[in-house]
């Protein structure tokens, strides 16, 4: 990182912390359900959106151990929009550390070879620069968790997630053949162990079961680039749209419902979102939610 860039970044982040909860006279108690920021710098819009939601301090306390869970499941480059934008993930990491988090851990149980996914996605380098601890999945660290859901009764979940003080879900918005879209709820499949390919037979119910036990404190949906076809891997730049947008919210289901609109759909069009709403896990009627839009 160049010095000038560093100073700019430090200034931006410092400002965001100072303004946390004050921006636009929004206080934590009346902060919007969802904040949507649009602009050419992934770092700036991520920072702005989180500030608009009440700031990172609303979600992270000093001394917290935080897991930041991006989607980096595929051996693809950032421009393919198959993995979360590295700058978005790194910005979330930086904000957590500035808010006093003791440690920020980043990992994913990948589909392609983990080494290639971590490197080619650009996320490993970006978040390590930001101060996160990056590790590959250690199969010994999965712990059986009682889920008692409609299809998933018990499943191994990564210990680091269970033991963390806070989980921040940082997915990317993509097309998916089976579920139509993969965003926040689907991204949490990266923290489960076992033979997760068995989930596909009841994918919607299984995702809802998982969401009922794993609740991220904050969800940052990366729509800097979205993948509109041939997901979740993509590979053809023609299937990528540049939206320069980041959507954040405390309720991952609401964030996903907003995300669906980026693809010309509604929350109700996605079965797992419908089921999640029915289970009372969150709202998908975004027209009734308070949404703050920021454009830079």
């Amino acid at each position, binding site marked *: 990182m160049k010095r000038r860039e560093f100073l700019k970044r430090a200034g931006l982040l410092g400002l965001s912390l100072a303004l946390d909860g004050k921006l636009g006279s929004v206080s934590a108690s009346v902060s919007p359900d969802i904040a949507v920021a649009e602009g050419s710098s992934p770092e700036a819009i991520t920072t702005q959106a989180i500030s608009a939601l009440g700031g990172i301090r609303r979600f992270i306390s000093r001394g917290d151990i935080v897991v930041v869970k991006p989607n980096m499941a595929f*051996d*693809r480059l950032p421009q393919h929009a198959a993995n979360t934008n590295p700058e978005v993930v790194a910005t979330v990491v930086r904000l957590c550390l500035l808010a006093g988090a003791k440690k920020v851990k980043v990992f994913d149980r990948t*589909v*392609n*070879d983990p*080494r*290639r*996914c*971590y*490197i*080619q996605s650009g996320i*490993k380098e970006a978040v390590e620069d930001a101060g996160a601890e990056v590790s*590959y999945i250690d199969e*010994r660290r999965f712990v059986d968790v009682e889920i008692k859901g409609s299809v998933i009764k018990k499943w191994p979940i990564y210990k680091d997630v269970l033991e963390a003080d806070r989980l921040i879900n940082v997915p990317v918005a993509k097309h*998916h*053949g*089976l579920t139509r879209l993969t965003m926040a709820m689907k991204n949490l499949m990266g923290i489960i162990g076992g*033979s997760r*390919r*068995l989930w*596909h*037979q*009841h*994918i919607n119910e299984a995702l809802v079961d998982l969401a009922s036990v794993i609740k991220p404190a904050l969800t940052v949906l990366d729509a800097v680039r979205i993948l509109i076809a*041939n997901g*979740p*891997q*993509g*590979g*053809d730049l023609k*299937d990528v749209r540049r939206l320069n947008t980041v959507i954040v919210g405390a309720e991952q289901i609401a964030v996903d419902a907003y995300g669906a609109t980026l693809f010309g759909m509604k929350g109700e069009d996605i079965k797992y979102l419908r089921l999640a709403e029915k289970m009372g896990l969150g709202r998908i009627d975004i027209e009734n939610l308070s949404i703050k839009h920021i454009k830079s």
Partner: protein
Amino acid sequence: MNKLRRASQGLFLVIFLALFLSTESTGEDELGYPVKIFLELDPLVFLVTLLSNHTIVKDLFLLSMITVGLTLLFGRVFCGWVCPMGTLNSMVGFKTERRWRDWHRVKYYILIFILGSSIFKLQIAGLLDPISLLIRSLSIGINPPFNSTIHSLFETISYMQAPLVTGITEWIYSVLKETVLSFSEPVFRQEIFIGFIFIGILALNLLERRFWCNNLCPLGALLGVISRFSLLKRFASDRCTRCGLCDKVCSGRAEPHKMELWRKAECVYCFNCEGVCPEEAVHFVLKGEGKVMGLDLSRRRFLISAMAGIVVVPFIRSEPLRKNPNPVLIRPPGALSEEEFLRRCIRCGECMKVCITNGLQPTLLEAGLEGLWTPLLVPRLGHCEYRCTLCGQVCPTGAIKRLTLEEKVEVRIGLAFIDKDRCLPYAYNRECIVCEEVCPTPKKAIWLKEADVKERGGGVRRLRQPVVDPELCIGCGICETKCPVVDMPAIYITSIGESRSKENQILLP
């Protein structure tokens, strides 16, 4: 001098092992280490590739000429100072003082046999070439049990849940993971077989120190032939009392105590004789003239070996595989046409060591006896990673072409077939399509067909069933690897459609 020699052996062994351990993906596109350099320094690999395939691989030529040059100057110093296989043999046999029967000529007959068959385009040098043998044995036979031993040891400790102990052992474990352990535990077919052959070869050192090097090694034989013309020669002065100590410490079968009958081609220049001589009578001098012992091979055996090498070719070649391609013989991407591939592949196992998914495995008879221990992809164990080009990067002979990323993703190594009796949406009316999700081609080679299926109760249900597009499928096998029907997958790859073959095709060209 022999201290210096030991230092050199140690240094080269460490370099060799470090490069061996670095023959592994870092996640970057390029490996970044010259992991095949010892193979490229090997003139036997160069010579047989030249004879069997009439090709000169540039790096192989340039580097092996360094070894030839060194041998012309100093004799078999490669054997005594550089070769990691020689060093391992010296180490295992360091206490052995016995000698086996005088078999040192056998290695020349082996060499002649190999060269004889090479001329008739049968490439079997790799089975006995020491560098190929060593890398293959370590990759397939030694590294996997080494890894599993360490893993199970530390995992047993970690399950004991003793806080203080596991704190320390986990730290040691993580250091080992960073250094000597493979990224994930490797598994190979024939592991025990290839491992035992290697251990057997090392055990021969109990019969005689450097048994392999003195009696069997075809590279040692080739360098022995070249060393006939070398300049560095051994002389014993008048002070020699014929005490015979030099013969006892000789690493080779050079018979230094026989003075001018010293077998130069058997000397690996260990300098033990110089060091041990109580009269300091032994000297090595760079000198053009001076009579030395020839190879002393029997003409009859020479001819028999050459003939055997030639005759074996049609016996091995008469194979039904030559009439019909083997569906399970899925070669790595960039592999040349089968005939040329077999003429070039030296079975060093570098591609199998580097394969990022551990899917490349040694053949037994899938490619005929001729193709023993060449690589094939077993998608059930590991697929061909779409954006990985490592196997072509480490192949020393070009049997697997070095492909750019753009070229690699265009290469077909086979084609996927769906077994509808096992595929969940077809056989059991259940959603699945994991294969479609993982299919890596930019326009997915597996697409989803909407189907209305009758249910047991009489209702109709709409679900999606996978269909393979043979125009787009490259046969990478990730669908087979990830298919949830784990025992016998509902989607599988066969070799048909492979880019390298004219005959093994299913679509109009």
